[in-house]
């Protein structure tokens, strides 16, 4: 695996990592669209997007972010396969829905087509010269994990030799209104697992990894995806299952596929949104899955600094796990300060932890009872 990103705390992979370990807060007042009528007007907005060569500054923002992440990826790795053996799998909760807003407001045939959720994936596929499979996954806020799992399946089934996989989502009025209506946004800062947590803030980002089979991967790889799984809650249209059954099933199945025992997990990258419900449920799930060792394993959430980047979140979290292994440093859970009796794990408070996790478990959940888990192995220093 190699990676490329664009995030509210850094416009490339190095800046992203630096922002994580220095505790950068990427949330700020939203400037790009009107929010005066909304309860919460703050998010992890990327203030300046470098317009990649060949792209239009006023074009689809989701495609712009994906192109920027793809350019960053290509700065770290080459797409070493013929076009028909290259594939793309990207996850998104919102696709190009901002283009739907613009299409309804201003009209235009081009925008009507761009409003389809698979348009940004097609755009980045053209940019990368991909003529193999092009898939868009939309398991809500678990999309970035599901996409990596589907990418691994493409490689296993020899449908491609290299797969660019990841996730993205952009802030727009549509999504701000959705979460405003849900009353899940906080007026405070995001405080994952903290006693005072009152909700999440949204963010925008794109994150891509380059995946290849072990035998084709360069020696300097970032790490390996050992296992993945998804599961549905079958419980509620928007709220998570109160017992976290789907999340638990996904985590257990991913560990099983990876042939990794709970005792071998060195780090948990939690979904950790900072909502009262999610963090309590997720803590209980981690304890059930990891058993008695759960309290000894560091659990972090990077949403305190980024906001919840929806379709990009799980891919960013997977990349964080692998970078933690590379650098021997686990980023802190920004915003976590006061312990909650119901959230009683080691959430890496206040400062990064000197630790080189070999195996990480990353968990994600989203609207519609979507759950996904990844088991990753760092490439080491």
């Amino acid at each position, binding site marked *: 695996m190699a990676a490329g990103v664009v995030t509210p705390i850094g416009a490339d992979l190095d800046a992203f990592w630096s922002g994580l370990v220095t505790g950068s807060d990427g949330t700020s007042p939203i400037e790009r669209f009107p929010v005066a009528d909304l309860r919460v007007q703050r998010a992890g907005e990327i203030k300046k997007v470098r317009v990649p060569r060949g792209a239009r500054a006023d074009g689809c923002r989701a495609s712009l972010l994906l192109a920027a992440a793809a350019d960053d990826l290509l700065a770290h790795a080459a797409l070493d396969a013929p076009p028909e053996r290259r594939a793309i799998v990207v996850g998104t909760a919102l696709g190009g829905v901002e283009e739907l807003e613009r299409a309804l407001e201003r009209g235009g*045939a081009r925008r*009507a087509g761009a409003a389809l959720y698979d348009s940004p994936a097609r755009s980045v596929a053209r940019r990368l010269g991909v003529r193999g499979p092009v*898939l868009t996954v*939309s398991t809500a806020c678990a999309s970035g994990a599901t996409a990596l799992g589907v990418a691994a399946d493409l490689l296993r089934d020899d449908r491609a030799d290299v797969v660019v996989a990841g996730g993205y989502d952009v802030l727009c009025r*549509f999504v701000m209104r959705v979460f405003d209506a849900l009353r899940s946004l906080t007026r405070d800062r995001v405080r994952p697992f903290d006693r005072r947590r009152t909700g999440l803030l949204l963010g925008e980002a794109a994150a891509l990894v380059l995946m290849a089979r072990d035998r084709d991967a360069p020696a300097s790889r970032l790490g390996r995806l050992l296992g993945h799984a998804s*599961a*549905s809650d*079958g*419980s*509620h249209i928007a709220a998570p299952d109160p017992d976290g059954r789907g999340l638990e099933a996904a985590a257990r199945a991913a560990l099983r596929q990876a042939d990794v025992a709970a005792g071998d997990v060195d780090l948990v990258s939690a979904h950790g949104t900072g909502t009262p419900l999610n963090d309590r449920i997720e803590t209980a799930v981690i304890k059930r899955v990891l058993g008695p060792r759960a309290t000894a394993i560091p659990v972090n959430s990077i949403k305190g600094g980024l906001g919840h980047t929806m379709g990009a979140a799980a891919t960013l979290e997977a990349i964080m796990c692998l970078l933690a292994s590379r650098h021997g440093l686990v980023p802190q859970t920004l915003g976590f300060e006061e312990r909650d009796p119901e959230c009683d794990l080691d959430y890496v408070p206040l400062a990064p932890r000197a630790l080189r996790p070999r195996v990480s478990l990353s968990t994600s959940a989203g609207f519609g009872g979507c759950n996904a888990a990844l088991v990753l192995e760092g490439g080491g220093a």
Partner: protein
Amino acid sequence: MRVAGVGVLTGWGDGVDALPADAGAAAAGRRIVPLPAPALPGERFRRATRECLLGVAAASAALRDAGLDREAVRGERTALVYVTAAAYGASNRRFIEAEAGGALHFPYTAPSAVPAEVTIDLGLTGRYVILIGGAVATLDALWQAGRLLEEDACERALVLAVETFDECADLHARARWLAPRPLVEAAACAVLVRGGRGLAVSPAGAASSLEAMVRRRAGETLACAPLIGLALARRTGDHVVSLTGEWRGRRARGVVDGAVEDVGARRVAAPQ
């Protein structure tokens, strides 16, 4: 993998028997052939969108066709792979345009709302994948289902597709280069079980005769088309089914070997 059952609802009616011989002629100039929301009992469906109701109805029809009762599929051994190109458009638009009443619509804005209603209705807690795209994405959905069965990640997999167009008719008219007419609203679901080989998906140069038949008889149903093709293949008794699909300039082919079971009793004459 084997196809244990297929449920099909289209703007032409229930099942493939309702398909006309020539959708273009039957549409009689209509650009969109709508499919009304099915009336499903229960308070839980009171707020559900039309596309959610269609998804639930198609899944139920597939179970009936497979001879499975609801209890048989409940739990974590049934996977659900959902695919759509455009069915989220209606709820997205409704939310954008309903500035004041948005709170009622927000849970249904995500594409995951349709499969979520199906998982809740049937009590499914197994593997769960949602793909966006037209017929090519459905071939990928069938491939995913085949993989899950092969890995023993499930005992059966439902591949569900829903397409609605009516609420965004003006947008589809603007983007008319994307798909031929008539656009026919549809919901289709296949129940897949282990057996035979999985679905090998590869690029395709031309439409298979089955794809051409589906387009001729059903019209343009986007992601539903390959599943309607499976339903037609069950009727004609084809054991090796060559599915092809096209979406936005990409074309793929999947061959299901041993896909059809117990077809002898189902053979019917194709409409002339």
